[in-house]
């Protein structure tokens, strides 16, 4: 399944709204001006995600993932490589640079992932005029391959992945990662349908 150009644009715009909210929350929390770039969005089959991301994400990845359920069901992840996670941690907490992600650092990344994912899923929820229910977020540090394999095994019905390239800007630095929203086919169709309606609603 491919997204048309206008669908991609609409999705990006939608997520951007969520990002604005997340950036606002993060800025509030830390007292620093934080900005999230307009995301680049693509849709892929879940099997191809590992291959796609291998080139941009090095070594072990930190993934904060949060299942959601309701009219659409799936799993939402924020994925960063270790370097990005360490830098993000340092920028947000004003602590000196660390070589490893300690317990406190993991919590910070979990919270950031949580804020981001909540913001985006919240926007989807608004779009669909429903409540989505969220699970408690979990953080894993694993090789990219393993993460995808585990996801595919545990929830085989989730076949499609929305890949959203995410870039945080703060204090003259930037950190990149990926938000990945994994959906089953019916959820995706539902999402696309409502997206189209929203888009058309905008225009008219």
């Amino acid at each position: 399944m491919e997204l048309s150009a206008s669908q991609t644009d609409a999705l990006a715009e939608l997520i951007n709204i969520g990002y604005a909210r997340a950036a606002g929350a993060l800025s509030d929390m830390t007292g620093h001006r934080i900005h999230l770039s307009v995301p680049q969005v693509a849709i892929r089959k879940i099997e191809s995600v590992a291959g796609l991301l291998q080139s941009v994400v090095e070594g072990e990845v930190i993934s904060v993932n949060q299942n959601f359920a309701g009219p659409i069901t799936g799993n939402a992840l924020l994925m960063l490589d270790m370097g990005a996670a360490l830098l993000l941690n340092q920028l947000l907490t004003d602590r000196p640079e660390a070589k490893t992600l300690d317990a406190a650092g993991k919590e910070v990344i979990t919270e950031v992932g949580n804020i981001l994912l909540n913001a985006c899923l919240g926007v989807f929820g608004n779009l669909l005029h429903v409540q989505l229910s969220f699970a408690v977020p979990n953080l894993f540090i694993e090789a990219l391959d393993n993460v995808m394999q585990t996801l595919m095994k545990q929830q085989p019905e989730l076949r499609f992945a929305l890949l959203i390239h995410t870039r945080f800007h703060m204090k003259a630095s930037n950190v990149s990662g990926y938000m990945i929203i994994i959906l089953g086919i019916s959820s995706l169709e539902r999402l696309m349908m409502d997206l189209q309606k929203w888009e058309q609603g905008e225009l008219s």
Partner: protein
Amino acid sequence: MPNSSSIAPDLQNSAILSWMDEFSPYGIITTDLSFRVQIWNRWMAEKSGLKAADVVGLNLLDLFPSIQSRRLGSRFERAIQGEVSVLSTALHGYLIPMASTVPEAGFMHMQQTARIGPLTAKHDALGTIIVIEDVTQREFQAATLRKQHEREQLLSWALGHLMQLMSTPRIVRELFYQIAQHYDYDGYFLYLRNENHLMQLSSAGGISPEARVEISTIEAPEKPWPTLFSNIPVIINHLQQSTVPSENWPRSLGIQSYLALPLSIGEVSLGALCFSSRTRSDIPADEIELLVTISQYLAIALHREQTEQQLREAQAGLHEHALELELKVTERTRRLREMVSELETFSYSLAHDLRAPIRAMSGYCDVLFEDYRSSIPEEPLGIIERLSKACLKLDHLTRDLLEFSKVSREEIKLGAVPIRDTVEEIISLFPEDYREAIQMTGPLLKVRAHPGLLQRCLQNLVENAMKFIEDGKRPEVCIRSELIQGGSKIGKPKFALPFSKAVFSESDPVESGNEAQGEWVRIWVEDRGIGIPPGGQEKIFGIFERGTSSEDFTGTGIGLAIVARAMERMGGKCGVQPREGGGSSFWLDLQRG
């Protein structure tokens, strides 16, 4: 009926609830949709000091207004809408303000990580549930590790700079900026012993210029500030509150607390370093360790600086002395050379001037012998004969001396000389029946030499070989040459100057530095003569030395001295060793031509 081995769901649920209330290692709070507290588990009660009975039914956000003021109220709102929030301690510190569980950690409140989520039953929100984890101990340990790491970095930075041989006051100045970043000091003083061994303020920071002027003019700082110069590290706290008279001086500077560090190597005190604060009145003892270590390394660097300075001065002194010595030696050499030159001139002129009278004497003897033979009786005739022989000897002596002088004084240029040619020339000078006694064996190479001098050397050797033989024996001389590497290792140079035993190396065309390199040719002149008495191999090249005291052999004793001198002038060497089967083997070493 439920199976007796499984637990009824509602029993199970109440068991779990009961566990959550009594045993949970986390704080668990639930609220209704208006945020009124429903469950306040035992952990919460114990750690907050608020009993469940006191809080149930009250609005959580009203109970703890700091939640709203820290803008965390919105998390609760969103929980009702279904969102789960994670609140990390690094970003928020805590959710519910409670007493710190690790007093020594220095936190005002217990450090917490919290999760807020919706309390739902069948997709309907009933309220919120909050789970609180106490991470104070964990954060304290992490902070301690971080501090330790920072200190280690500071230490290695300090050591790195000390290794770079910066001047000590400069190191301390930079060190102070580093230390001021990590610790709460706003002033430092560095005292060093000057050349007169008095303590002097070398540098200071964080004090007003007037104070600095005032301090630096104090002659003996040990008097007004004795603590600074104790021989062990000292912390003085709460200075402003003390009335101890020995602390009047630092107190007058507004210092609240300070750390005094001696800079000493063993018993020797090199100076003192002080870090002070006008805002902190209490320096904890654990800060002292790192700074003491740094002060010890500073002392070592200081000591090394001083030692190096002394070393440099000593070296400069030595260098000067060496230069002086060299000048003296050059001067002395010059004078000696002058003397030698004068002596050689003298001996030359002497020998030269003697020749005429000697020839006259010889001439007169001949006249007597030839013209007046008939009128002179036997005995006086014998006397005249002996007189004549003596004159001849005198003539030979002066001639040889003259030769020796010439060899010493002449300007020589070296070129490639074929040995064979020279030897053939020598052979031709001998009477015919003697020529066959001189044999040449093998290829005779070319040498770098002066043709005249080389001929003189070989001629003298051959003459000796022909002369110094046993009665009745026929002379045998054998000349050959061979290549040798490097300078000769057998024997020492045997050069003797007339009138002295000094050995000189003059500024001759041949550089003596390259002696050991390159190819050398050894010319052997071997005879079957009477040989040289043991121990005489060295002396024989001395002037006026003869291998034998016997009157049977004529010889002035200068012949070999001439050889030695000539060889020296050509940059070569000569020597002799006994020959197997009788006789002597003389050798001459010259560079290959």
